[in-house]
């Protein structure tokens, strides 16, 4: 058990009493000079960091309307104060969205507004001192950029935008975070967050093909770097080996197989994740996204389908057209990109999939809306499709489905506690505490409706829940991939009927579940 107190699961959500400085001690590992320099950032805190930070701040204010407007517009009405899962789980007042923003806003006021220059005491303006910078580092790495606050703000102020800008400024003065920056460098070099090389990837996919054949008697392919395939699948790299992610990947493969659509994975762009979003760097995000474009052109594919990953789907859906578009070389009959849920849903609608719901009868399921999918993207052609389509797939694959309470799902969903570049063990205390609101909602449906499993469509959510759920008394494998359920239910042409059923768990992949994507 961890060396901190676990938040209690209560009957209903009630904002905690404030505990000043409750999380002030928690500081994510700083990036080593090598991690920083690989991204073109200074290796360590630069000389004259204050002036350089203000200079970068000024530049960002001119580049980002959201930053500019959001720093001006807040009236401190308090609407957001009880909306952040990290506040609800820790009681630290600086984890209230407005207070987190104010860490940056007070510096903005001091340097960029008349009121803050003339009457700092009146408007809460403050200089960027070393203490303030430390607060920035600690508390802007306690924001998972989930946008829940933005839903409730009367002006739509999005703390994610503020924390991204703060991280961008800190990177530029040599105060970056190890977890994100190390991973981004790996993507630039190798093509995925895990540093998985092409031979290892080929090996893994081959192994999965064998597993599927053993289980079903049907040869389902997981092709790698096949030129001229119709679809390029871009999945989070955790799908290649972590549990329960890999069961989702098997599900995608079975759906492609059954749909009769040729597809391939690219070893060059073997990562859907784009952690550059977390550090707020347009340039880095652009560079990572360009790999997708290059892979699509090199392989000559016609459509891009993105696997189950929350922030990756945000980047893909909302940003790829900007960062790596235009995609005029792809098949114009399909949106670019498509979510694998959109693909599967379409096949279900067409009646192309034979689904045996009873294969999932040993579970009663609920669905965790991942924050970036819920509040920063869409599926299908109607607003809210990102909620309806995964649920429609779920219901097509399972007999037992129950939603969690209304104020914890859809666009009111709670972050898993590990998003936004915080899925690292040095932030475990925050991750466990930040999961409390979701765990509470889950416990409610577990107690009242006998829910046994929670499906998710995000690699980070899956890794995070696998890690923290045992602390709350749930099994680590009670979080499942949505396409794992599809995989269980799907009856492939030529599949021996009896073979359909819950798959066995392999020991080594189960242990891999705690690694990040």
């Amino acid at each position: 058990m961890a060396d901190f107190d676990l938040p209690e699961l209560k009957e209903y959500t009630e904002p905690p009493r404030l505990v000043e400085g409750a999380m002030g001690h928690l500081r994510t590992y700083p990036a080593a000079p090598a991690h920083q320099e690989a991204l073109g950032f200074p290796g360590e805190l630069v000389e004259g960091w204050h002036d350089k930070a203000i200079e970068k701040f000024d530049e960002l204010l001119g580049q980002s309307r959201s930053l500019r407007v959001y720093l001006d517009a807040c009236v401190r009405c308090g609407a957001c104060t009880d909306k952040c899962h990290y506040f609800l789980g820790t009681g630290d007042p600086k984890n209230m969205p407005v207070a987190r923003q104010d860490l940056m806003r007070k510096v903005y006021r001091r340097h960029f507004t008349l009121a803050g220059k003339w009457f700092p005491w009146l408007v809460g303006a403050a200089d960027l001192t070393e203490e303030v910078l430390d607060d920035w580092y600690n508390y802007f790495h306690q924001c998972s950029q989930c946008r829940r606050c933005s839903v409730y703000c009367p002006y739509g102020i999005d703390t994610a935008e503020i924390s991204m800008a703060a991280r961008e400024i800190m990177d530029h003065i040599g105060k970056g975070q190890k977890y994100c920056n190390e991973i981004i460098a790996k993507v630039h070099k190798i093509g995925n967050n895990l540093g998985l090389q092409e031979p290892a990837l080929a090996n893994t996919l081959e192994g999965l093909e064998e597993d599927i054949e053993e289980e079903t008697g049907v040869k389902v392919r997981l092709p790698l770097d096949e030129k001229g395939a119709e679809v390029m699948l871009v999945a989070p790299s955790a799908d290649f080996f972590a549990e329960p992610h890999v069961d989702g990947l098997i599900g995608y493969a079975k759906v492609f197989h059954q749909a009769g659509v040729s597809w391939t994975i690219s070893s060059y762009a073997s990562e859907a994740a784009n952690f550059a979003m977390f550090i707020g760097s347009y340039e880095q995000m652009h560079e990572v996204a360009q790999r997708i474009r290059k892979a699509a052109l090199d392989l000559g594919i016609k459509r891009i389908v993105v696997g189950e990953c929350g922030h990756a789907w945000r980047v893909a859906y909302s940003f790829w057209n900007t960062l790596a578009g235009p995609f005029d070389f792809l098949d114009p009959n399909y949106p670019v990109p498509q979510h694998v849920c959109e693909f599967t849903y379409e096949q279900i609608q067409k009646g192309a999939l034979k689904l045996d719901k009873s294969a999932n009868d040993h579970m009663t399921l609920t669905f965790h809306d991942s924050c970036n999918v819920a509040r920063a993207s869409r599926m299908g052609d109607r607003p809210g499709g990102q909620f309806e389509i995964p649920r429609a797939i779920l219901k097509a694959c399972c007999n037992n489905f129950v939603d969690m309470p209304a104020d914890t799902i859809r666009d009111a969903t709670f972050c898993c506690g590990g998003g936004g570049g915080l899925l690292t063990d040095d932030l475990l205390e925050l991750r466990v505490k930040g999961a409390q609101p979701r765990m509470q909602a889950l416990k409610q449906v577990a107690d009242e409706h006998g829910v046994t499993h929670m499906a998710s469509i995000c690699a980070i959510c899956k890794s995070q829940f696998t890690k923290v759920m045992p602390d709350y008394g749930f099994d680590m494998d009670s979080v499942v991939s949505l396409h794992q359920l599809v995989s269980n239910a799907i009856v492939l042409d030529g599949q021996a009927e009896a073979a359909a059923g819950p798959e066995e768990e392999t020991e080594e992949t189960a242990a891999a579940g705690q690694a990040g994507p």
Partner: protein
Amino acid sequence: MLTAAYAVLFYAASLLLAGGLAYKIWQYTKTPAPLKIPTTPAPLTLPGVALRMGRELALFESLFRSNKWTWLFGWMFHFALLLVLLRHLRYFTEPPWTWVVLLQPFGLYGSFAMLAGLLGLWLRRVAVERIRYITGPSDHVMLLLLCGIAVSGFAMRYVDRVDIVALKAFVLGLMYFDWQPLPADPVLLVHLGLVAALMAVFPFSKLLHAPGIFFSPTRNQADNAREKRHLAPWAAKFESTGK
């Protein structure tokens, strides 16, 4: 002397308000939003966005979802203020427009609702621990200013009636640069002074939420990222690395 002082005060306050707001709006306009970031589910089209924005402006939709008490007091204050402002149009037009005349009795109730809303919001600032934590001196000053305007307004109506005919002549005189004497009533002077102060601080304070909401990318963008390519001018420099 008094007339001149207040005339100059109002010209200055008006210039600050108009100039300051114009500057901020110009600044917001020229600052691009580099990425599509509407809070979803979001409307897919521009008319849809207008409707979403309309609901935010008229109903405070997001605030309603967030907190019913803050919504109640906030909405009450804002719409009462609007009513009161419209009621005051009668000082600026001769003869007053018919609908402004019809509005007069409602405007009176409006002023009560306005004060009630303000006091409710102020009470939350003091009584709710979370909101007390985020409240700074300027938040109290702003409430004090607005309450002062409301209370001095009441006083002129119910306690110490002012010569509103002379007042109207003064206001029209300001507008047409033909100054007329301002009635030297202390309550009126306080009322007008506070109003001028509010106008002057508007572009330098959190009152910028008023123009700000129109420029909020999470609320004013349509959800059409896949269909329509969005590119900020400064981000175009990265384009060369494409294809």
